[in-house]
């Protein structure tokens, strides 16, 4: 019965994830998956009660209460703009838990584990430890505690290869010599590797890193499932591993870079301070922006990470409301890597009550730009840089971008002419049809709204 109940939990996970294929059914899907989790937990408790053994209930209950409390507190309190770092932290806890389950098995069996299970134990320890420490470095970068610039370990990225090889070697010793010490050394090396692997990754590449760590947390859970011989863990872990991998690959495609080049290479543009700011730009005031917007028929808003930083999602919506009241059609064009995690902008705009059918992705928005009168770019830079199309020497050449230069007028809200993460100058800023509105994103939108209303 226990086995069948775990199977039921696995089926509920699959049905729940299927619900996420449409915004209409998504909330119910998430709840179905949560029911699956509850089933799995209840079955486990019943299984323990049925065993003829002394059970340390105090520890189980304490963990459930403390962990559940912390999780609920974080989930209820978090601001939508901070979602990437929260998901990063949750990834870390998930991976850490799987590593701890494997560690408990090593302790319980004193490292005398059948070879096949020992391999998965080692994998669970290594992948779980990388996920734990890597996720907290990612959290730190997103939260601004750890510098978001690239930080290389001594010896560069080659050090990571050495650490990885050493961890595998130590795990091999643990497996074949039945040595707990071997497992612990492997875990410690993996924990260091998590730190040194994520530190060199810059802020704008975070969507890829979070997706990959998400996948890792699933794979670690699946490996822990092999360790304790539990199919619910294997099914749940495999689903998450697949989900994270799909998102990772999709993010990499959206940047026109391989996952390997994001994880293991230096990246950055050649634009220097002298290049930037010497060419003439057309700068605009709130009134100029308001006039352009108010006399348009079709407006497309392109949000980027700057919108999240400025917490400007409600200000965007207010401006859109004012334009819609004048009969102007307003839609939103969202690049797959806008923000710091996949779908980040969509969540922020949903928070501001923007209807989800107005959020267009790359393929939907590009054909619409030629018929668009005004594109309003708020806090996005590299994803609208025409150098990706026109300049074969540009580091982002070949990256699919939003073709905002096809629109009649482009208004760029930006604090200054400083280049984006990639350190690449943006020729869009110097186009004849581009108006540069230098301001904080939220302030700019509020000023533009006031000016639109005063017209």
């Amino acid at each position, binding site marked *: 019965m226990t086995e069948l109940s775990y199977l039921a939990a696995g089926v509920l996970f699959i049905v729940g994830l299927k619900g996420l294929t449409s915004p209409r059914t998504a909330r119910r899907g998430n*709840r179905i998956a949560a029911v699956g989790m509850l089933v799995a937990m209840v079955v486990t408790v019943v299984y323990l009660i049925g065993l003829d053994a002394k059970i340390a209930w105090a520890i189980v209950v304490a963990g459930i209460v403390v962990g*559940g409390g912390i999780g609920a507190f974080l989930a209820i309190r978090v601001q939508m703009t901070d979602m990437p770092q929260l998901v990063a932290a949750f990834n870390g806890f998930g991976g850490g838990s799987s590593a701890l389950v494997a560690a*408990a098995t090593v302790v319980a069996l004193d490292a005398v584990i059948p070879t096949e299970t020992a391999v998965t134990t080692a994998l669970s320890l290594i992948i779980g430890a990388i996920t734990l420490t890597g996720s907290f470095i990612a959290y730190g970068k997103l939260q601004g505690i750890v510098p978001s610039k690239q930080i290389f370990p001594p010896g560069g990225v080659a050090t990571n290869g050495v650490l990885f090889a050493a961890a595998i070697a130590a795990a091999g010793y643990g497996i074949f010599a039945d040595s707990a010490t071997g497992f612990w050394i492997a875990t410690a090396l993996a924990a260091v590797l998590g730190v040194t692997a994520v530190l060199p990754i810059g802020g704008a590449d975070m969507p890829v890193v979070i997706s990959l760590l*998400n996948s890792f947390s699933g794979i670690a859970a699946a490996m822990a499932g*092999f360790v304790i011989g539990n199919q619910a863990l294997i099914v749940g872990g495999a*689903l998450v591993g*697949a989900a994270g991998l799909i998102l990772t690959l999709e993010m990499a495609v959206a940047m026109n870079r391989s996952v390997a080049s994001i994880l293991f290479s230096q990246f950055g543009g050649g634009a220097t301070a002298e290049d930037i700011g010497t060419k003439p730009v057309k700068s605009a005031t709130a009134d100029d922006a308001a006039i352009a917007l108010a006399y348009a028929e079709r407006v497309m808003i392109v949000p980027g990470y700057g919108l999240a930083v400025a917490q400007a999602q409600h200000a965007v919506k207010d401006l859109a409301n004012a334009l819609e009241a004048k009969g102007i059609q307003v839609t939103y064009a969202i690049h797959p890597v806008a923000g710091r995690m996949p779908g980040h902008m969509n969540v922020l705009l949903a928070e501001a009550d923007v209807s989800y059918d107005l959020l267009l992705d790359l393929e939907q928005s590009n054909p619409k730009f030629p018929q668009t009168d005004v594109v309003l770019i708020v806090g996005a830079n590299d994803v609208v840089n025409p150098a990706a199309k026109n300049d074969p020497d540009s580091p982002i050449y070949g990256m699919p971008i939003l073709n905002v230069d096809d629109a009649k007028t482009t208004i760029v809200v930006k604090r200054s002419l400083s280049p984006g993460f990639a350190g690449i100058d943006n020729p869009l800023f110097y186009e004849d049809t581009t108006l540069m509105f230098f301001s904080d994103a939220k302030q700019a939108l509020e000023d533009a709204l006031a000016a639109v209303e005063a017209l």
Partner: protein
Amino acid sequence: MSAEFIAGIVVFVLAAFVGFEIIAKVPRTLHTPLMSGANAVSGITIVGAIIAAGLGTGVLAAVLGFLAVTFAMINVVGGFLVTDRMLEMFKKVPGKS
């Protein structure tokens, strides 16, 4: 390899394929909730954590078990709750297209 281990591999591979097929259909607009929801599902390791914590003997086992359950519960409760919070906001405002 034991029959149980091979059965585990079969389940893993099939579940991964089912995962790929379903998740590839998730629209981009839901990628953040997908990630946090999937994240909560990876908290299924709570099952192993409860067993490890319940059956463990000795101080080290107790500490590992407690931490495993705590970490997994943060993931489970936090993940499902925050996903629900996000999905509640995804609305289609009527009368617009």
